[in-house]
C-alpha cells in the first residue's frame, strides 16, 4: 500500500490520523488505557515512539518548510531500535577527544549501517569523523 505523504492537515496525528498511530507492539492509542495498564497488558514498549511515527512527523515538518527538523526526525527514526546503552556509547564517542582517530567513528558508522540500517546517521557520523580529523578533535583532553 502506498499513501500520500502526510502534511499539516493530518496533524495532530493522535486526533486526525489515529489509524496510523500505534505503539511498538501495534497497540492503538485507544488500547493504551488505564484499564489495560492495570491488568498489565500495557508496558513501556507500547508507550515508545516508532520509526514510522517519526517519519510521518518528518513529512509533516517538511510540508511546513522545516527541512532540518524533518532531517532530524528521519535520523531519529533510524535510532528507535538502538539499545539505550549503545546510543549513549555513540554519543560519548562523538564528544571531543574520546575517539583516538577516524577509524573508531567509521566503525560506528559501519555498524549503524549493517545492523540498524541507519544510513543517514551513519553518513552524519562519517562527516563528523572527517571534520574531527581536520580540526584536531581526536586528541584526548583528560
Amino acid at each position, binding site marked *: 500500500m502506498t499513501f500520500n505523504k502526510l502534511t499539516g492537515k493530518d496533524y*495532530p496525528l493522535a486526533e486526525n490520523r489515529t489509524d496510523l498511530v500505534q505503539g511498538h507492539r501495534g497497540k492503538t492509542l485507544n488500547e493504551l488505557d488505564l484499564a489495560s495498564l492495570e491488568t498489565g497488558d500495557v508496558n513501556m514498549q507500547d508507550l515508545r515512539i516508532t520509526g514510522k511515527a517519526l517519519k*510521518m512527523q518528518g513529512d509533516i515538518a517538511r510540508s511546513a518548510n522545516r527541512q532540518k527538523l524533518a532531517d532530524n526526525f528521519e535520523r531519529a527514526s533510524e535510532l528507535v531500535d538502538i539499545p539505550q546503552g549503545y546510543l549513549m556509547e555513540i554519543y560519548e564517542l562523538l564528544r571531543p577527544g574520546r575517539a583516538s582517530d577516524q577509524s573508531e567513528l567509521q566503525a560506528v558508522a559501519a555498524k549503524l549501517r549493517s545492523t540498524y540500517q541507519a544510513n543517514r546517521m551513519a553518513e552524519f557520523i562519517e562527516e563528523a569523523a572527517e571534520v574531527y580529523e581536520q580540526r584536531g578533535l581526536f586528541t584526548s583532553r583528560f
Partner: protein
Amino acid sequence: MVDPMSVKPNRWRRFSQWDERPLRLDSFAVDDPENGFSAMKGAADPQPSVEVIDGKIAVMDGIAEADFDMIDTFVARHHLDVESTVQTMTMPSQQVARMLVDMNVSRNDLVKLAHGMTPAKLADVVAHLTAMEISFAYSKMRPRKTPGNQGHVTNAKDDPLQLAADAATAVAFGFDEIETTMRVSRNAWSNALACCVGAAVGRWGTLFQCSSEEAEELQIGMAGFSSYAETVSVYGTEKAFIDGDDTPWSKAFLTSAYASRGIKMRCTSGAGAELLMGFHEKKSLLYLEARCLCMQRAMGSQGTQNGGIDGAPLASSIAGGVRELMAENLIAVWLDLECASGNDARSSESEIRIGAKILPFLMSGSDFICSGFGTILKYDNSFNASLFNGEEMEDFLVLQRDFEADGGLTPISETQILDVRIRAVEALSAVFEELKLGAPTTAMKNSVVAASGSDETESYMPRDVSLISEKIKGRGITVLDVIKALAKRDFKQEAEHLLSLVKLRVSGDYLQTSAIVRNDQVISAINDPNDYNGPGSGYQLSEQRRNEIINIRDQLSRDAVLHKEETFRVKEAANIAYTKIGQAMAGKKTDEVVIGLSPAFGLKLFRTLADHSLADVLRELISGIESKGLKARIVRFHHTADTSFLGLSAASLSGSGIGIGVQAKGTAVIHHIERLPHNNLELFSNAPITNLAHYRKLGENAADYALGQMPVPVVVPTRGEALGARFHARVALIYAIETSLTSQDSPPDEVTISFRGGNK
C-alpha cells in the same frame, strides 16, 4: 579649630542615597570589543559574505572553506541553503530589517530568507532595529500563535512532598512546562517522580523536565518521568564548545536520540557564555549567538532556550546588552525555532530593570515568555534566582492585567491552590506507600501544604531523598508503576492525566516546533501558526481568556465599598446623631465658622480614608474652633460634593466669612468668602494620612482666620507613599456615591449634632 561651616561640601548627598539602592549592586562594564565586551559590534565580527562554487559553500562570512572551524563547517553544510544564499545575501541588510517590521511581508517569506543567510548577515540585519522594532518583529515572527510560559520547580532540600505540591501549584497557575533540578545530583530520580505526580493534579498537559547529567536525563526520560529536555547547550566559538565537552555533531546526535525516544527537546544558548568561558575571539555577543542559532537549526532542533540564560547578568552589564538579548531571540524565531525566550536568570537587583526587561516579551508574546520563571521562592531555586520568582508572581499577574497581555499565567484563588497542594501531597504519599518508597507522616504533609518555602517544612531532608532516589533508579521503577499506584489508591484522575502525558510520545505530535498541550490538545506551529499580518490578526485575547487574566484577588467594587460602609453604620449611630432643623441661611455673627458637610457625610459613608470615624472628625473640628472662643455651625450641602465648593459655600453662609468644607472621605478645606473656588486658604488633600490631630488644628486655624490672624498652615507630612495607587479606586467609588446624592436645586440644611458618649 576649623569652622565646620567653612568646609566646602565634597559630595552631593543624593549620591550616597543612590549608593544604597539595589541597582548599585549590579555591575556595569565599559565597551571593550577587543576583550569581548561588545553587544553588537565586536572587534573581529566578520562582514557578511558568501561564495558558492560547484554547489558548495566556498566562502562564508569572509572565511574560506579550508579555514572553516567546526562551527563554520556545520553551519555551511547544514544551515545555509545553497540554492538561495547567493541571491539572499545581496539584499541590503536595512531592506531586510524593514521587511521584518513590515506587517505586509509574511512570516513564511522571511523564514525562507533566513535559510539563505549567514550568521554575520542575520546579526547585521537585526542590529538595524531599535528595541521597539525588535519587539514588534518578535511578535510577528514567533512560531506559535498562542503564548506560553515555563517555570522552575525546585527546593533547597530536594523534598519530594514539596516538589509535588509546588508542581501542582505551578500547573494551576498555567505553566505549560515545568523544570526541576537538584541540590544533590543523585536525587534526580526522586525529583522527577515527585514533580511528575504533582504535575498530574488538576489538569494534564504540563510538560516536565528534569535537568541533570546528559545520560541520566535521557534515562529518566526513557522511564517516562520527564517529557522534554532543554539542556543541549551549544556555544559560538570552537574552543568554548570543546570546553563544554561537545561538538555540533555530538549535540546533533543527542537531538536525534531524544526524538528517537519520543521526548521533546530544545537546545540552549545565550549571549555571554563564550565570554564567561574565556573564548570570545573578540566577537560580539550577537554575532556569536547568531552562530549558535544557525547551528541549532542545522542540527534539526525544533527550538531553543535562548536570550542570555546563565549569561544574562553578564550581557546586562554591557551597554545595549538587554537590547542584544532581545535581538538574539528575534534571530531564533526568524530561523523558525521555538523560543523559550530567556527572562530566566535574575539579571539585576533593580526591580525596575526586572520589570522593564520582561515587558517587551509580555507585550509581544513568546512561545515561553520565561525559559524558567521561578515558581518557588528565590532561596528554593536550585537553578539560582529567576528574573521573576514566587515572591513576584502577583506582580507578573498584574502586569498581564495592566497591558491585557497574555503571559501564559492565570490568577487562582487561595482555596484552589490549597486544594491542589493537598491533593498533590496526598497523591505522592500514596505512590510512596504503594511503591514502598516511604510513608510521609501527617505532620510532614501538613507542613508542606502550608509552606511558602522549604525553610518552613518539617519534611524529607536531602539524605532521605538520596535513599528514595536510589531505590527508584535501582528497582527500575517507571512511570507505569506510578500510574498503577495512583489508580490503585483512588487517584484515578491523576493516573489518567499522567497516562495521557506519556501517551504523547507515541504519536510524536509534540515533537513539532513550539508544541505545548492546551485543553487536552497538542498545539504547535503546525496547527496554531502565528499568522500575524497587522492589527486584528495573530494572537487575540479572547473574552474568556481576558476574564481569566484580569481576575486577580482583592478587587474593589461599589458593592464591596458600600457593604463595608454599612458595617460602620451601626457603630457610628452610637456616636453621633445629625438633626436637620431647616434650611441653612447666611449667618450674621462674626464669631462663627461654618462647617459644610458633603451629601453622604454620616448618612451613607462613615469613615475617612484614614479610617477615622466621621463623628471623631467633627468632634475635633468643633473642639479646635471652640478652643479659640469661636462657635461652629454645621450645614449640610446637597448641591455639590466637591471640597472646594463645599468650603466656599460654607464660607459664604458664615458670619465670619470663614468656612470649612469636609467630604466623607476626609478631604477638607478652609475657605474664605472672597476667594475663588480653587484658591483656598488651606487644603487637606491627603485624607489617607490626615489624622485627628490634623483635624483639630484645622479647626483652630479656621478660627484664627476668622479672628483676622495668620496662623501657621497645617502641613500633613507625606513620605512619598503612592497614595493614589493605594486609594484612588476606593476614592473614585466613594466619591461616586457622594456625587450620586447631589441635587442641584436642594438648599443646604441647618444641622445640629449631638455626640453620644462614644469613642472618646
